[in-house]
């Protein structure tokens, strides 16, 4: 049991180490200096309080996107639609942030709630289609991503602006920004969203592990037939799972809309945060705590990467390669497990 748990922790750690080594090899082969590259990355992620603020800001949506992917995953569903749910959440949050003038205690929660609701709605559709027609959610969520992108762009153009490309700035009462955090981090874009992310992580853990609802969701995820046999409403649980997952993703969008950007603009393509969420969830072993750690890692990699071209002449894409390889190694954990058991045996 405990041995198993140890392996479960060691696998992602090994994956990260292997990914970083592979990244170094890529740099060496391409004629870059890996030490300079990684030092630049490290400096760009944690070098001073400004960079730390930026890193935490990036970690915030990553945690939520990771939770969204993981929540669905734990209940047997693959939500590739986090990206689209995030986009509609972002839109909804900004919409509320722009359209109303309310006291902060009402306005901010309302905007976040709107984001969660929009994401939930976007998750509901694939959930419903899966429950009702047994349509595979992977394909539907991929399609829903594109629909989210085009529909939200259209709304930004024709409703939130006058054929412009971005909305107005949200009212300060709906903003997550804070002078205090900015002064703390030398004017980084850090905002209070991180607290919401951490709360969301606790909520996910509690909901899934400690409640009857979570028990049902997990049971349905593992074995629908047995859940039906046990008297659970399978369809309702499938939908619920996608709705909750979508709500997490929607809140991730709110973090961008109410914190980082304070507006929403027409997007030529996806934000990528939703897809990165898959990596976060996977590396985090789909557990709330693991996701926080994984989000910190990926957030630091992404933010730190921006320092690499100027300080070490290394293209930022190196970090995308490293992240991809980390996912690869985690996915192929069979190999790492094999090596670990070998090592253990020899140790005995």
């Amino acid at each position, binding site marked *: 049991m405990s041995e198993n748990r140890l392996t479960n922790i060691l696998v992602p750690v090994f994956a990260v180490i292997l990914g970083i080594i592979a990244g170094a090899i890529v740099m060496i082969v391409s004629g870059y200096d890996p030490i300079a590259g990684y030092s630049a990355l490290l400096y760009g992620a944690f070098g001073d309080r400004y960079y730390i603020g930026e890193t935490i800001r990036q970690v915030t949506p990553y945690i939520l996107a990771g939770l969204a992917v993981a929540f669905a995953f734990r209940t047997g569903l693959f939500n590739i639609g986090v990206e689209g749910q995030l986009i509609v959440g972002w839109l909804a949050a900004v919409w509320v942030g722009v359209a109303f003038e309310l006291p902060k205690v009402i306005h901010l929660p309302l905007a976040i709630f709107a984001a969660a609701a929009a994401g939930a709605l976007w998750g509901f559709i694939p959930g419903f289609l899966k429950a009702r027609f047994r349509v595979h959610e992977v394909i539907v969520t991929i399609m829903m991503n594109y629909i989210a992108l085009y529909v939200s762009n259209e709304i930004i153009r024709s409703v939130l602006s006058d054929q412009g490309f971005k909305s107005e700035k949200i009212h300060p009462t709906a903003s997550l920004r804070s002078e205090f955090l900015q002064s703390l981090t030398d004017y980084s874009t850090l905002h209070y969203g991180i607290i919401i992310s951490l709360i969301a992580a606790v909520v996910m853990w509690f909901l899934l592990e400690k409640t009857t609802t979570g028990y049902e969701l997990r049971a349905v995820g593992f074995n629908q037939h047995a859940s039906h046999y046990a008297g659970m409403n399978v369809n309702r649980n499938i939908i619920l799972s996608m709705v909750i997952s979508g709500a997490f993703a929607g809140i991730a969008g709110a973090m961008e809309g109410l914190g980082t950007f304070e507006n929403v603009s027409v997007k030529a393509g996806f934000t990528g945060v939703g897809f990165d969420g898959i990596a976060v969830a996977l590396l985090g072993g789909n557990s709330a705590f693991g996701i926080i750690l994984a989000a910190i890692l990926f957030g630091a990699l992404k933010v730190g990467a921006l320092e690499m071209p100027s300080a070490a002449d290394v293209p930022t894409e190196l970090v*995308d390669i490293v992240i991809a390889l980390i996912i690869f190694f985690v996915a192929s954990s069979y190999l790492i497990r094999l090596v670990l058991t070998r090592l253990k045996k020899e140790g005995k």
Partner: protein
Amino acid sequence: MLHILEIIIPSAIFFAAPLIFTALGGVFSERSGVVNIGLEGLMVIGAFTGVVFNLTFADQFGQLTPWLAMVVAMVVASIFSLMHAVAAISLRADQVVSGVAINFLSLGLSLFLVKMWYGKGQTDQVQVGFDKIDIPILSKIPVIGPIFFSNGYVPSYLAIVLAFVVWYVIYKTPFGLRLRAVGEHPMAADTMGINVTKMRYIAVMLSGALAGIGGSIYATIISRDFSHATISGQGFMALAAMIFGKWHPLGAMGAALFFGFAQSLSIVGQAIPFLKNVPTVYLLILPYALTILALTGFIGRADAPKALGTPYEKGKR
């Protein structure tokens, strides 16, 4: 109306061609039981390789360049797909996750190389592309000729021919029978002396090869250079076409043509009187919405290969 078809259909076909190639690749992979979400990434590799080859060797090979680029892209992407094969088949990785990793990696790696080789975010424009042709004789047929056989690219017609070839291979040859057996019931195939692992490797590599072709002709015909935005969603569209087409080569081709049609309609639509007042957004989301509708049973149930997504472990019950 006829005139509008003359505008829409040729562009529907050239939009569809990369999707057809890639979707046919998907058919091979998924028929063997390996999910391939990585088609998008494999197309990226194909597009990248095709463009880089084209830029590098255009002087040596002249008009032959795009064809050679296509072949090289095919080879490189199929080698790249080995990563998915190793992870999904030998290392029993979650196939969806491994596919997602392929997508991340291919984009990261190709952009990294572009920056390294060209010192900037995208390549130059390729100078030697495929030629537009009117198919001799066929294009002279009244009505149909100008609509279907004029103003097309050779690779587009190749894609359609290939769909029939793949159909023949999958349904009429021993290889196809074995491939389908491996995707439906790998253990049964194993006991019949079929090397499940080998079959799946071949299938995944074929999917890489065809997605590579798809990506390279997309880049050569349509975008003409390679950047982060060159392949943005076409691989997923191909995946959708394959499912829409019920994992059948001709179905996949039909679906890809349909998507091409929807996309070309969303663009040309603005020029058609009765579509003029329809907001573009409806036409933009049309292919995606239709795919979802189709999946909900509009066109009957689609049964995926039974072993799809499950790694085969010898001796596991």
